[in-house]
């Protein structure tokens, strides 16, 4: 365990080299928040009936969605693909630890880094410029737990895309398809309750809502009591099954991997 945490700490320190990058990440997030706030204000101004939640809740929803977006691991499949191309992947797989866990603890550094250097400035900015509600007590605890489960789901999805590199080497296309599906089906842009009833029913069975919709709904207090337990349960089931699937495919694909160098 210590070795994994050391890896997290090492990657965390590496991240600090790219300061300018952080600045632009914060700028992009603030920009997204501004755009979403303006859009939702216009949408609510054009007819608020049938939109389920209040404008204030919807604006909070957008801010939290933009923050989650910068925190979830969404592009480390490029790193895996890169290492398959160069052959360095062999070195990772030979080491006496789990490749899945190693990748997880490495991306965890990104989460920590994002929390410290991206979320705090954005949260400060949004409290000053556009105040949002903040949950307290048990609700806050369940939100954090739900957010972490969502992180697990997002990690597994990206890892699965990365594993495809063992077979196809290049995975840019698969990654883009994953991002598109996540963008539409997770509630990242438009909450699931605004989808047509039939579509919403299907989306509520899929893992994608666990990344955005469930944690944010807990945050704004839309999911409470039994509905919240059901949401958390669903997240737990999906996170566990996707991680298990990743581990199984890792073993299978490992046998099929053909690469050069090392």
């Amino acid at each position: 365990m210590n070795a994994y945490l050391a890896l997290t700490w090492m990657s965390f320190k590496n991240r600090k080299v790219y300061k300018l990058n952080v600045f632009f990440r914060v700028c992009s997030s603030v920009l997204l928040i501004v755009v979403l706030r303006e859009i939702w204000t216009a949408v609510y101004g054009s007819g608020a009936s049938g939109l389920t939640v209040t404008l204030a809740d919807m604006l909070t929803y957008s801010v939290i969605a933009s923050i989650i977006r910068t925190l979830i691991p969404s592009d480390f499949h490029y790193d895996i693909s890169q290492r398959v191309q160069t052959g360095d992947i062999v070195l990772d797989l030979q080491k006496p630890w789990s490749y899945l866990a190693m990748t997880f603890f490495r991306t965890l550094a990104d989460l920590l880094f994002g929390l410290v250097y991206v979320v705090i400035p954005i949260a400060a900015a949004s409290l000053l410029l556009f105040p949002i509600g903040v949950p307290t007590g048990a609700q806050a605890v369940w939100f954090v737990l739900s957010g972490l489960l969502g992180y697990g789901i997002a990690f597994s999805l990206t890892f699965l895309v990365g594993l495809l590199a063992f077979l196809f080497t290049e995975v840019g296309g698969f990654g883009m398809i994953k991002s598109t599906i996540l963008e539409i089906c997770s509630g990242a842009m438009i909450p699931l309750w605004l989808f047509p009833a039939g579509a919403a029913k299907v989306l509520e069975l899929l893992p994608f809502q666990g990344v955005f919709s469930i944690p944010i709904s807990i945050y704004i207090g839309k999911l409470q009591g039994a509905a919240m337990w059901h949401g958390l349960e669903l997240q737990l089931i999906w996170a566990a099954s996707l991680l298990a699937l990743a581990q199984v495919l890792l073993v299978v694909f490992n046998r099929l991997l053909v690469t050069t160098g090392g």
Partner: protein
Amino acid sequence: MFAHMKIYLRLQAANLRARAMYPLNFTLILVSVAFFGMTNIILTWVLTQKVPIIAGWNLYQIVFVMSLWRFSHGFFITFSQQIWNLEYLVREGVMDRFLVRPLNPMFQFFAMRIQIYGFGDLLAGIGGLVYAAPHIGHWNVQKLLLLVVVVLSGAVIEWALMTLLGVSAFWTLQSGGLMGLLDTLLDQFSRFPLSVYGRPVQIVLSFVLPISFMAFYPSYIFMDGMEGPPFSSVLVYASPAVAAGLAWLAYYVWRKGLNAYQGAGS
């Protein structure tokens, strides 16, 4: 001129052959770029099921504007995404090569490669336009010709703005961050027509960073029964002028940048 075109076609034919080396990945990326480009159409459809008219715009009008932008953007990506590599080429000293050959350095730089994945954006753009166009107004030959002019102006505007930022690499050796910011801006603000946003945003996107001339203002030419655009209805026809002005500025700054370029020592 003719010689330039011949060289350009030769180079791009070679590029295409190189790309065809990984046919599966090539096709997959093309399809996924097109799919990604249509995300906003799908999301807007979902939203207009609940709120049919947003700030005076219906589904087809919103889709028309965003697809017009995406179509221009597709041309930009295809023919000038190379600008993203400028900082790298400056740092590596590759620019030296362009300066000693007997052809315009800017032509050589952009002719180095076309980005075929831009075809995905073109596909998504044309798909959205075909979906929306019949529902927004009457079409005739003049309007179609105007559409061509508008699309090309849009591509030139994005090219000029990106070049203006990219050229900063000649002085600072890094321009990726700035261009990434403009890219995010274009991406986010092309989701909805400018009317949706507040006055400050409208002023910035019209007169400071005139990206609204890529699709928003000219879209009024093609839509019947719309109220005039913000500020002035003259702006509807201003895209070609904006494009020409920005292109001149971009070329001027590019020349300045080349003079400041010092090469990479080794």
